[in-house]
């Protein structure tokens, strides 16, 4: 077990955690009641994935840190999530554009990791692969309705896809080749065409255009985030940090 292994798992855990934190915002704010239920479901699935992955990362690290130590007592620079998930998503079109990309990536990723040589990771992925299939389907349904709905929704959906697109490439950032060679991690160069192909087909079906935009500067996996993450963490962590050592 190496630190690269723990870091890899931590990155996936942070992706799921930060995404769940953003998803939770929607509960009581969705366009209709069924959607409050659906987005809560998706957020809960992501949070569940985050918890098991964080616990696993903590045990790989071997310093006795559990899920809450890692979630609540690390600073911005120690978070390893991609920037895609950390930016605000208070617009429904943005939420669906991002979920389509993120869940499709997770679906391809977890399908590979279900056969990882790390048995814990394989177990988490094997369970999560079913959850994210629902997330992909949910996002797809909405991207179709919004893309091919009214003129306004079409425009808003395209604007959202354009806004998310520069952050897609970071999902396929390099992974330690030793982890791939050992069968622990998924190879991003294999994931990339599969994910982009699936997302592109949905966008086409939704009468939307796949953007040709340069990728944003990456860095999330090294702890170089957008300014938004600090606020997200400040809100998420403040209570726990105000009572160090307390149990809840």
């Amino acid at each position, binding site marked *: 077990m190496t630190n690269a292994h723990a870091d890899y798992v931590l990155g996936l855990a942070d992706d799921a955690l930060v995404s769940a934190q953003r998803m939770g915002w929607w509960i*009581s704010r969705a366009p209709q009641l069924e959607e409050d239920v659906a987005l809560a479901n998706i957020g809960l699935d992501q949070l569940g994935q985050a918890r098991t992955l964080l616990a696993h990362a903590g045990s790989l690290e071997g310093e006795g840190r559990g899920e*809450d130590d890692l979630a609540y007592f690390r600073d911005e620079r120690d978070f390893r999530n991609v920037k895609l998930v950390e930016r605000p998503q208070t617009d429904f079109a943005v939420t669906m554009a991002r979920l389509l990309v993120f869940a499709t990536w997770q679906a391809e990723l977890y399908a590979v990791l279900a056969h990882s040589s790390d048995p814990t990771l394989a177990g988490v992925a094997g369970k999560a692969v079913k959850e994210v299939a629902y997330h992909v389907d949910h996002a797809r349904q909405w991207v179709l309705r919004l893309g091919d709905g009214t003129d*306004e929704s079409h425009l808003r959906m395209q604007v959202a896809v354009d806004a998310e697109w520069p952050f897609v490439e970071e999902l396929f950032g390099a992974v330690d080749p030793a982890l791939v060679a050992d069968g622990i991690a998924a190879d991003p160069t294999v994931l990339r065409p599969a994910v982009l192909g699936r997302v592109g087909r949905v966008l086409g079906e939704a009468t939307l255009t796949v953007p040709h935009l340069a990728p944003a500067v990456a860095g999330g996996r090294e702890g170089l985030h957008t300014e938004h993450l600090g606020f997200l963490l400040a809100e998420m962590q403040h209570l726990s940090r105000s009572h160090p050592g307390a149990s809840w």
Partner: protein
Amino acid sequence: MAQVYGNDFTAPGETPARPATSDEPETFRALLEGEGRVEPRDDLPDAYRRTLVRQIAQHAHSEIIGMQPEGNWISRAPSLRRKAILMAKVQDEAGHGLYLYAAAETLGVDRADLLDQLHSGRQKYSSIFNYPTLTWADMGAIGWLVDGAAIVNQVPLCRCSYGPYARAMIRVCKEESFHQRQGFEILHTLSHGTPAQKAMAQDAVDRYWWPSLMMFGPPDDDSPNSAQSMAWGIKRFSNDDLRQRFVDMAVPQAEALGLTLPDPEIRWNEDRGHHDFGEVDFTELFEVIKGNGPCNAERMAHRVRAHEDGAWVREAANAYADKQAARPGADVA
């Protein structure tokens, strides 16, 4: 009108529900007398239908407005386990809203109209949700006291004369009972935690105790709709009886928690076989119902904003469905 989670009463100065007329269909009266269930296709008196629509709708509104005070802490829950439980709980409330709107729709109204009445202030929701959630311990107090009071009110509704409402309440009560236990557990953990955590728990109970007692509505002799609702088998016990049942349940639980209830007059009365307790300040309740509570404006603004911000999404979904239906090969049957 104020709906208190399966209760129905009128604030002073408001018109009470129209009294029943004697021209109730024979079949309807026979059903009530035989303790049978009234179903949507039965011949229902208009006044019974109107009372039920209002009560069920306001119950549904309470569930969805009730998502806000707890939703307020999802982003700040102090552990990931607590965050997951809270998200699931608020999600359940959305689900309860869905069952209840569906139950109301069996009476010939539709959800969109009921929501319009909520948004324009013509229908109300439970006043308890106009109180703010100021600390994490409020998640415990709401679960223990507010959901506890809701259960006391709602368990009898599982035997309500209107079938679809009674059946919805059976599902709702099962989940509420889980919610109450998790609220109790939050408070138990806090009251056995650090001194700061225990103080937080006590403060939350101090703030939520009296508003929880108000959830049962005004005293029986000041509750103009109760008699009719009892005659119709919608309401089974009086406001004061339910309030007493709640106090009797809460007192030993507070002891188990190691917390005190903010009422020096609470004591066991051997003769009555119940706990005596102090007088509830119903002036405060009526002020909150009239819109002067701490969070009335915020709760409504949040709800209306969510609805308005989502309008383009709902329009798009309808437009998409229409296009799909119009496409060649679409099933038009």
